[in-house]
């Protein structure tokens, strides 16, 4: 066995099935190398696990965030949604009510932080699932009468004798009502809670159950089923059930469908009100009275589809209309069994069908990829929650007045100003038309040189989702003013914050040269009124452009641009105040009114050499410049060429040294070391090997971060320098790669 086999790692991590495990163990006996690999890997995995867990603990949720979640959980559902099957089988629950036991038992099991404890817990649970899903129809023949009956059964209601627990699972007694009503008041002290009914003999009669626990239905059963306590009815293996009456107005009881069987049928007039939970399998509603019970006007009408396999199907009856429950959700789906009409209705307060919000999208089943409906459903739920949490008329704004001054300090009318976000929800895509004209982001100064902007007391992300109107919310911003004859103006850093001190503190990590510690905290201190935006006199950037032979390059486009993110990691989204010109016939250029702060330059062609301020020529692109405080003019001469000059080439072979054609060789090529922007850090060039397995690439920079080589049928190989650029770039030259299968 090759020790570079992922299976060995999986074995060391305990991920293999018993069968695979045994196979590996047999191998290991005769392979000391693999054995020590496994031992080392297991030891290292332990170390890794420890290191990972010791990582600086992240923030916990804020108390308010937790409260919101718990509140949502309590108000959006009335039942304990934890897997109902566990109620029936969990051992040692004792005298407490099953529902209570879940809550009590769970934390001790899952709070266990060590992996072993967790694994035990999971194993236990799997066993529980297995018992539930594999159980068939209990037969009376296998019953043993002597086992203690945990249920107190009213004898007068039970004409037929065998009221006996099944042997296979002593806590799963099977009852046969034998043509009589069956009344099973499950004792409050009963530890077992599942009641299986051989319904062939119970048809036409009623069955009722009090106390906690489940009723399980087998075969068809048309009697009336009454339940009055929680976690109650499981419609079972292919069977049907109707006239389920559960709970009362004061204490509605949910109906649950579990088990992997495909079909359970609710037919007839079911009047239970606690909602329907389908954790797996399908639930079919048939008959003229078919509905999913639950009044749309109360929160109780919830059909929950848990598990991808849970579906609700409409009935084949013509015009069958599953009356809509209040919420039809979960990760299952709503499926229509045949070509009958499926109606989804939403009723308004007057009980008239209406759709006041939300969308119903009808699609042919074939058109809907698996998961699409689910995603749609989750999005809708989220959107509804947002709308409920933030009614559109309740948004709060803060109005801030700005005043633009010319270089002499005079208020200036008619200046175009736009708002640029740099953090969090502040970021806006400048190429997006809705933003380039949006009144919340674009302004012109009035006769007094002023304008008013609004900042919301919300996350723009949420706001936009509800109102479809991009509006600045929490985040960091600048106002950028453009005015002919000046370099333009940039406001102080504007910080619109949700909270106070901690936000203020967290600012320190984010400041760059545009911020310099001056900022207006919009939701905290009162910003100066008005906030002044100072138009500045610019500097001049001038120089010449030549080719490698020293000939002037005419019509070369030269541009400058400022970036509000200049020192942040994001590197884009903050470009502003662009200026652009072409070189003349002598290859010279001059750009005036460049804002006197750090700026970027760009040139058409491949820029390979630079001379700044008349200094020595350097064999690289120097496009990130900062003027001195007194400097009025900066000279930048550059050499551009037409084709990228740096040559990377080599051969890709397999383990036997045979050439690998059609291998893709990818180089990560940066312009800066370390690269300053995301874009620069994610620039790639690639080539494909020819029949001889050879590739070559000419790239514009010698700053190559690394290689990835992949070919069909081979393992992907990668070799990269550190993301923090502490290594050195790969110089031009030949790089050969050997791939393994």
């Amino acid at each position, binding site marked *: 066995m090759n020790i*570079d086999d*992922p299976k060995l*790692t999986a074995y060391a991590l305990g991920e293999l099935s018993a069968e695979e495990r045994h196979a590996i163990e047999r191998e290991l006996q005769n392979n000391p190398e693999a054995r020590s690999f496994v*031992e080392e*890997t297991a030891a*290292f*995995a332990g170390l890794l*696990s420890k290191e990972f867990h*010791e*990582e600086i603990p*992240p*923030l*916990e*949720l804020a108390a308010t*965030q937790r409260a*919101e*979640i*718990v509140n949502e*959980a309590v108000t*959006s*559902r009335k*039942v304990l*949604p*934890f*897997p109902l099957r566990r109620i029936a089988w969990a051992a040692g629950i004792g005298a407490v009510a099953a*529902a209570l036991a879940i*809550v009590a038992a*769970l*934390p001790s099991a899952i*709070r266990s932080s060590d*992996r072993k404890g*967790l694994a035990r817990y999971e194993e236990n649970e799997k066993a529980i*699932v297995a018992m539930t899903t594999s159980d068939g129809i209990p037969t009376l023949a296998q019953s043993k009468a002597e086992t203690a009956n945990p249920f107190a059964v009213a004898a007068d209601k039970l004409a037929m004798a065998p009221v006996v627990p099944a042997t296979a699972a002593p806590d799963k007694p099977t009852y046969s009502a034998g043509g009589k009503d069956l009344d099973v008041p499950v004792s409050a002290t009963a530890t077992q809670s599942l009641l299986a009914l051989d319904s062939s003999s119970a048809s036409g009669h009623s069955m009722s159950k009090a106390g906690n626990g489940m009723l399980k239905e087998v075969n068809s059963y048309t009697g009336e089923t009454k339940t009055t306590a*929680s976690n109650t009815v499981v419609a079972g293996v292919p069977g049907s059930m109707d006239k389920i009456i559960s709970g009362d107005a004061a*204490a*509605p*009881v949910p109906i649950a469908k579990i088990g992997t069987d495909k079909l359970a049928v609710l037919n007839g007039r079911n009047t239970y009100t*606690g909602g329907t*939970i389908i954790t797996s399998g399908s639930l079919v509603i048939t008959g003229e009275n078919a509905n999913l019970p639950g009044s749309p006007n*109360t*929160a109780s009408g*919830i059909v929950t589809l*848990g598990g991808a396999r849970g579906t609700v199907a409409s009935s084949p009856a013509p015009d069958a209309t599953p009356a809509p429950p209040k919420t039809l*959700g*979960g*990760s299952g789906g709503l499926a229509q069994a045949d070509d009958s009409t499926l109606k989804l209705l939403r009723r308004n307060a007057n009980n008239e069908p209406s759709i006041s919000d939300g969308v119903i999208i009808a699609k042919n089943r074939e058109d809907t990829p698996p998961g699409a409906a689910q995603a749609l459903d989750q999005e809708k*739920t*989220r959107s509804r*929650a947002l709308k409920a949490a933030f009614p559109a008329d309740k948004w709060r704004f803060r109005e801030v007045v700005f005043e633009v001054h010319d270089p002499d300090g005079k208020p200036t009318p008619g200046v175009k100003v736009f708002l640029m976000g740099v953090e*969090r929800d502040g*970021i806006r895509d400048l190429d997006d038309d809705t933003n380039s004209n949006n009144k919340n982001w674009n302004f012109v100064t009035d006769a007094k040189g002023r304008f008013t902007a609004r900042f919301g007391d919300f996350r723009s992300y949420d706001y936009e989702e509800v109102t479809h109107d991009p509006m600045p919310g929490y985040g960091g911003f600048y106002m950028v003013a453009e005015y002919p004859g000046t370099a333009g103006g940039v406001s102080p850093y504007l910080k619109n914050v949700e909270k106070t001190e901690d936000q203020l503190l*967290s600012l320190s*990590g984010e400041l760059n040269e545009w911020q310099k510690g001056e900022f207006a905290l919009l939701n905290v201190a009162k910003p100066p009124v008005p906030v002044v935006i100072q138009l500045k006199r610019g500097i001049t950037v001038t120089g010449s452009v030549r080719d490698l032979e020293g000939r002037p390059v005419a019509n070369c486009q030269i541009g400058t641009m400022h970036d509000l993110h200049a020192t942040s*990691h*994001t590197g884009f*989204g903050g470009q502003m105040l662009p200026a652009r010109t072409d070189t003349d016939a002598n290859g010279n250029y001059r750009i005036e009114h460049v804002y006197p702060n750090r700026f970027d330059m760009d040139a058409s062609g491949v820029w390979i050499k630079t001379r700044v301020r008349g200094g020595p020529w350097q064999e690289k692109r120097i496009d990130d410049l900062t003027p001195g405080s007194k400097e009025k003019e900066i000279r930048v001469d550059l050499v551009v060429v037409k084709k990228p000059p740096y040559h990377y080439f080599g051969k890709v072979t397999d383990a036997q040294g045979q050439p690998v054609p059609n291998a893709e060789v990818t180089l990560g090529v940066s312009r800066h070391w370390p690269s300053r922007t995301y874009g620069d850090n994610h620039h790639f060039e690639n080539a494909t090997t020819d029949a001889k397995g050879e590739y070559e690439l000419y790239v514009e920079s010698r700053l190559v971060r690394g290689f990835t080589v992949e070919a069909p049928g081979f393992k992907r190989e990668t070799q*990269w320098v*550190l*993301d*923090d650029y502490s290594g050195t770039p790969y110089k031009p030259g030949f790089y050969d790669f050997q791939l393994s299968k």
Partner: protein
Amino acid sequence: MVRSSAVPSPMSWIEPILERYERPLIQYAASIMGDPETARDVVQDTFLRLAQQGALASERLAPWLFTVCRNRALDIKRKENRVIAMNEEHHEVKSEEPGPAARLEIKEKTHCLNQLLQRLPENQREVLRLRFQCDLSYREISEITQLGEGNVGFLIHTGIKTLRQLWPQPLEVTK
């Protein structure tokens, strides 16, 4: 609101789940977002969705939580178009947590782990984190990341191999 008398209160069903998954989820979201503060919002959203959705079979719970959390984090990250390195200054340190010296040690160690992780491709980093920090199985990781289970195994295998080579101290194996 009417509530069945048999449903015990005041503890909500979601609280044990919060207890168990809150920190791993924040840690995971922070590793995607690079920012613990936003990660916290993402995790709150995740739990709110769980609260609205309700019943989930328990073996589906972890994959569900991590998948929703991951999608939400990636969604926001895409919207924000920004990649930030972990900034440790953002972390709150509570009084019951290790003292300054121990903290420094932890910080250095994890800083080292973090640096080493940086040398791995993103997909390897992510699966290693899910396996060793969030204690999820290959199958669960496969479900969350939409990678095949074999692929997950391969990534973890390769990631561990690389980390072992890079690890500063020699590894002691106790037999």
